C-alpha cells in the first residue's frame, strides 16, 4: 500500500503535472491474481502488463522490469527519493536511466509491481504506456530552455503532448510502439531516428514572430533502421496537435498488424514511399482539423519555471578538489543564461544506486536554481541552472556520492542497453561492455582528448538497436560466433553513424569478439592520430572514410577492415579460455534467448 514520503528537509518543488492514477495500481494487483489463477490467458495478461509499463525479464515469468515514464525527462527531488526507496524495497537497490528518459527498476517480483505503482502515485509518476503498443515516453532535449542554439523552449509542448496522449483511446492499441522526440536544436535531440521528431523554429510572418516546428516522420532504429523525412518547411504550433493526431490515425489504420517484425511506422513509410505518405498526412491533418466536434487543443503551460538560486553554499574558498578541471571540461555545458551551467552527471550505462539517487535529489535541491533534474538521451541525468561559482562545491558533493567521474559529454561515456543483465532477447552483455570501455577510457584519460570529444560509442546486445549502435561513431551489436564447437560473444561493428542534421546509419565494418573490442577501439584511435589532419576530430575523420572522401592510407571502410582484421583472430580455447566467456560471466559462452516483448 501507499507509503507516505517523509517531508524533504528543504522545500522541494512540485511538478506541474500529476501523471498518476492510483486505481491502476489496485487494478494491476487484481489482474496479476487473476492471471496466477489461470483466469486470464498469458497473451492477454502480457498485453495488459505492458500497457502498464511492466516488461518481461530474461528467462523467467516471476520478475518484471518496471519502466517509469519521465515525460520530457523532468524529474523532481522528491520523485528521485521515492524511486530510491522503491528500488531498495522491490528491486535490486539500483535504478537505471534509459536512453528514452525513463527510469527502470529491474528484477521486480511481478506480484510487487502494484506496490511500486502505488509508490509512484505518491509522487505523481506513472509507468502507464511505458511499454506495449502505445505512445511511449515523450522525450525532450535535456537542454531545452538553456541551449544556446535553440529558437524557443520546446519543453511545454512536449509535456502538453504527453498529457494529451497519456491514456488517450487514440493510442491504446497501435500496430506497434510509437515515439515522439522533441529537441532544442539540430544537435541535442534525436529527431531523425524516431517516429515523430520535432525541432522548434520561429518564422516571421507579416512582421510577427510565429512559433512552429520542423517535423520529421518515419525514422527509427531497429532490426532495420531508417532516417526520418521532414514533413514540410514549417509546421505552425497550432498544427502540432493536428499533425500528431493525423500521423497516429494513419499509422493505426494502415500499419502492419500481421508481421511483428515490420510493424513500426518507418516500414509503412518505406513501403508506401515518402511522397505518398507525406500526402496522406497532410490530407488527414486537414480532415482532423475540420472534424473535431469540440475544440481539441494542447494545453500548453507557458508559465515560466521559477529560477531561484538556492541559498548556499559556496562561501568557502578552500582548495579545489583534484580532477575538478577535467570534470568541468568534460561534463558541463555553458547555458545561454549568463553564469549558469548544465551538468551532465556521468553514470555507468545509466545505473545508479539508491543512495546516489538520494544524493542527486539533495544536490538538485541545494544547487539547481530551477529545482528539478532532467534525464537525457544517453542514459544520463542532467542538473541545470547550476551557478558557475557553485561548481567546485557541487563537484565535491558529487565526489562524496561517487558520481564525479569525468567524460559524460565525451566519447568516454558509451551507451549500453541492458543486454543479458535482464533482457530476453539479448545475446551478449552489452551493459557490462559499455562499463568496461568507459573504465578503460577514463584510465587512459581519453575523456580529456578534444579530438575524441564529439565521437560516440553505443552498444546493443542484439540486432534490435536499443543501445542505438547505428547512430554511433563506433557502434556494436552483439551476437555469437564459434570456433569448432566453442562459442564466443562476437559484436558487429559499424562506423560513422550520426544523429544530427546529417543523420546517417553506421556502415558495417567487421565482426569483433567481445574481448577484442577495447583493443580494436584503441587501434582505431591510434590510426586516427596517425592520419588525422590538423584540427581534425575522430568523428569527422570516420565520416570521410565512410563517404570515401579520406585521402590518407585508410580511404574506405574496407581499408579499415583490412588493418583491423589481425586483431580479431580467435585464439584457441587452450591458449585463452577467457576469450570464450562474456563479461560478467565465468562460464563458457552460449547464446540463449527468450521471447521478445517489444512487439507484444
Amino acid at each position: 500500500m501507499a507509503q507516505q514520503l517523509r517531508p524533504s528537509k528543504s522545500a522541494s518543488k512540485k511538478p506541474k503535472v500529476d501523471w498518476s492514477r492510483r486505481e491502476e495500481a489496485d487494478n494491476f494487483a487484481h489482474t496479476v491474481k487473476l492471471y496466477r489463477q489461470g483466469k486470464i490467458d498469458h497473451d492477454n495478461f502480457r498485453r495488459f502488463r505492458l500497457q502498464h509499463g511492466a516488461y518481461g525479464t530474461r528467462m523467467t515469468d516471476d520478475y518484471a522490469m518496471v519502466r517509469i515514464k519521465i515525460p520530457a525527462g523532468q524529474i523532481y527531488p522528491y520523485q528521485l527519493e521515492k524511486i530510491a526507496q522503491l528500488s531498495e524495497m522491490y528491486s535490486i537497490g539500483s535504478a537505471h536511466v534509459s536512453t528514452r528518459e525513463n527510469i527502470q527498476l529491474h528484477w521486480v517480483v511481478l506480484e510487487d509491481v502494484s506496490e511500486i505503482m502505488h509508490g509512484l502515485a505518491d509522487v505523481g509518476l506513472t509507468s502507464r504506456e511505458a511499454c506495449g503498443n502505445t505512445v511511449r515516453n515523450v522525450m525532450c532535449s535535456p537542454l531545452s530552455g538553456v541551449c544556446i542554439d535553440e529558437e524557443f523552449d520546446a519543453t511545454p509542448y512536449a509535456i502538453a503532448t504527453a498529457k494529451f496522449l497519456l491514456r488517450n483511446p487514440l493510442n491504446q492499441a497501435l500496430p506497434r510502439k510509437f515515439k515522439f522526440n522533441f529537441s532544442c536544436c539540430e544537435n541535442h535531440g534525436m529527431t531523425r531516428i524516431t517516429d515523430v521528431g520535432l525541432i522548434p523554429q520561429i518564422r516571421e510572418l507579416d512582421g510577427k514572430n510565429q512559433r512552429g516546428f520542423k517535423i520529421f516522420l518515419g525514422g527509427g532504429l531497429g532490426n532495420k533502421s531508417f532516417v526520418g523525412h521532414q514533413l514540410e518547411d514549417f509546421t505552425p504550433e497550432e498544427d502540432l496537435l493536428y499533425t500528431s493526431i493525423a500521423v497516429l490515425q494513419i499509422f493505426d489504420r494502415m500499419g502492419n498488424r500481421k508481421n511483428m517484425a515490420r510493424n513500426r511506422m518507418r516500414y509503412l513509410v518505406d513501403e508506401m514511399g515518402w511522397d505518398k505518405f507525406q500526402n496522406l498526412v497532410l490530407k488527414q491533418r486537414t480532415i482532423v482539423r475540420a472534424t473535431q466536434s469540440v475544440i481539441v487543443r494542447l494545453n500548453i503551460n507557458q508559465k515560466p519555471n521559477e529560477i531561484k538560486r538556492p541559498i548556499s553554499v559556496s562561501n568557502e574558498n578552500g582548495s579545489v578538489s583534484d580532477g575538478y578541471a577535467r570534470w568541468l571540461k568534460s561534463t558541463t555545458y555553458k547555458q545561454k543564461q549568463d553564469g549558469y551551467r548544465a551538468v551532465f552527471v556521468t553514470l555507468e550505462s545509466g545505473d545508479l544506486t539508491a543512495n546516489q539517487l538520494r544524493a542527486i535529489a539533495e544536490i538538485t535541491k541545494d544547487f539547481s536554481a530551477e529545482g528539478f533534474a532532467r534525464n537525457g538521451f544517453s542514459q544520463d541525468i542532467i542538473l541545470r541552472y547550476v551557478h558557475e561559482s557553485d561548481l567546485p562545491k557541487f563537484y565535491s558533493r558529487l565526489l562524496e556520492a561517487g558520481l564525479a567521474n569525468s567524460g559524460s559529454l565525451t566519447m568516454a561515456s558509451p551507451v549500453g542497453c541492458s543486454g543479458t543483465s535482464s533482457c530476453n532477447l539479448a545475446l551478449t552483455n552489452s551493459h557490462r561492455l559499455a562499463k568496461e570501455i568507459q573504465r578503460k577510457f577514463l584510465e587512459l584519460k581519453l575523456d580529456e582528448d578534444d579530438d575524441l570529444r564529439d565521437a560516440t560509442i553505443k552498444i546493443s546486445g542484439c540486432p534490435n538497436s536499443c543501445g542505438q549502435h547505428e547512430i554511433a561513431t563506433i557502434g556494436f551489436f552483439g551476437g555469437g560466433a564459434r570456433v569448432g564447437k566453442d562459442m564466443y560473444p562476437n559484436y558487429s561493428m559499424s562506423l560513422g553513424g550520426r544523429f544530427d542534421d546529417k543523420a546517417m546509419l553506421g556502415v558495417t565494418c567487421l565482426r569483433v569478439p567481445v574481448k577484442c573490442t577495447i583493443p580494436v577501439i584503441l587501434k582505431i584511435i591510434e590510426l586516427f592520430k596517425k592520419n588525422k589532419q590538423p584540427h581534425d576530430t575522430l568523428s569527422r575523420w570516420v565520416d570521410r572514410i565512410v563517404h570515401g572522401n579520406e585521402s590518407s592510407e585508410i580511404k574506405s571502410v574496407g581499408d579499415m577492415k583490412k588493418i583491423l582484421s589481425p586483431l580479431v583472430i580467435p585464439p584457441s580455447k587452450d591458449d585463452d579460455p577467457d576469450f570464450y566467456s562474456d563479461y560478467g560471466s565465468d562460464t563458457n559462452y552460449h547464446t540463449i534467448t527468450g521471447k521478445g516483448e517489444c512487439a507484444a
Partner: protein
Amino acid sequence: MRGLSNEMASTTMDVDTVRAKINEDSVRLIDVRREEDYNQGHIPNAVNLPLASLLSDDSPERVVKLAEDMGIADDTKVVVYDDTFGALASRVAWTLQYIGHNNVALLEVTYSQWRELGLKTSTEKPNIKPAKHSLNLNPNILATAEYLENAKESDSVVLIDNRERLNFLEQHIPGSINIPYRTLATDGKILRTKESMRNLLQNRGIPEDAEIITYCGSVGTLSGLAYYALKSIGIPNVKLYVNSFKEWKKLEKPIDKQENAAYWDLSAE
C-alpha cells in the same frame, strides 16, 4: 499460545508508550548497539547488550544468565532497540522469546530516529538489580536446517528469504521466495503498517494461516525483523531459521540460482 496477553501481542512499542514506561520505571530497555556507541549516549535507563556479545554464546543457559544480569524477571516488560533498521534488535528479542520470555517488543524506531525526533538521551548507566528468570524453551519459533528441509516440501509452508534481491537471485534455498528486508520498513518506522504488510502478503499469495519460515544470510537478523513483521499482523505460526543460509551452504544442502542472466551488472554498487 502460552501467556498471550494483549500487551504481549503487540510486537512493537510506540515512542510515547516507551517514554511513559521509562518515567514509571516499568520497562527494561535493551540497547543492542556496540558498547562504544552505547557509551556515547542511549535512551535513558537502557542497558547495553551488544548483539555480538549475545551471539558469542547464545545457548539458552547463558541467555537466561544475561537476562538475569539485566534485571529481567519472568514478567518484566522488555523493549529492544538498535540503529540497524530493527534487525539486530529483532534477533535479541527473538532470543529472549526463545528462552520463554514472551513479554518483549521492539521499539518502533531506531536510535537515530529517536534522536531525530528530539527525544531524550543519556550517558548514564542504570543501576541494575539482578533478577531471577526461568527457562521455558519455546521451540515453536525456531527452525533448524533439518526441520526446514522436511517442512519446505509441504504445501502449507512458506519459506521467505530476506536478503537483498541480487543475493537471492545468485543463490537461495530451493522453493524460497524473496522479500528483501528493506520491504519490511516504512518511512520513519522499522516496520510497515499492518495494513500494508497484509497487502504485501496478499499480493504475494501468502495465506496468513500458513507456517512461515524466514531466513537470511548468516545469523538471523534480517529474517528476525521479518519474523516480527509477520508477527505484527498476528500470523500464528512463524519460525526463524536462525542459522540461515550460511549454515545451509556449509551443510552442502541444495541451492537454486537464477540462471542465464548477468543481473549483477545492473548494479551500480
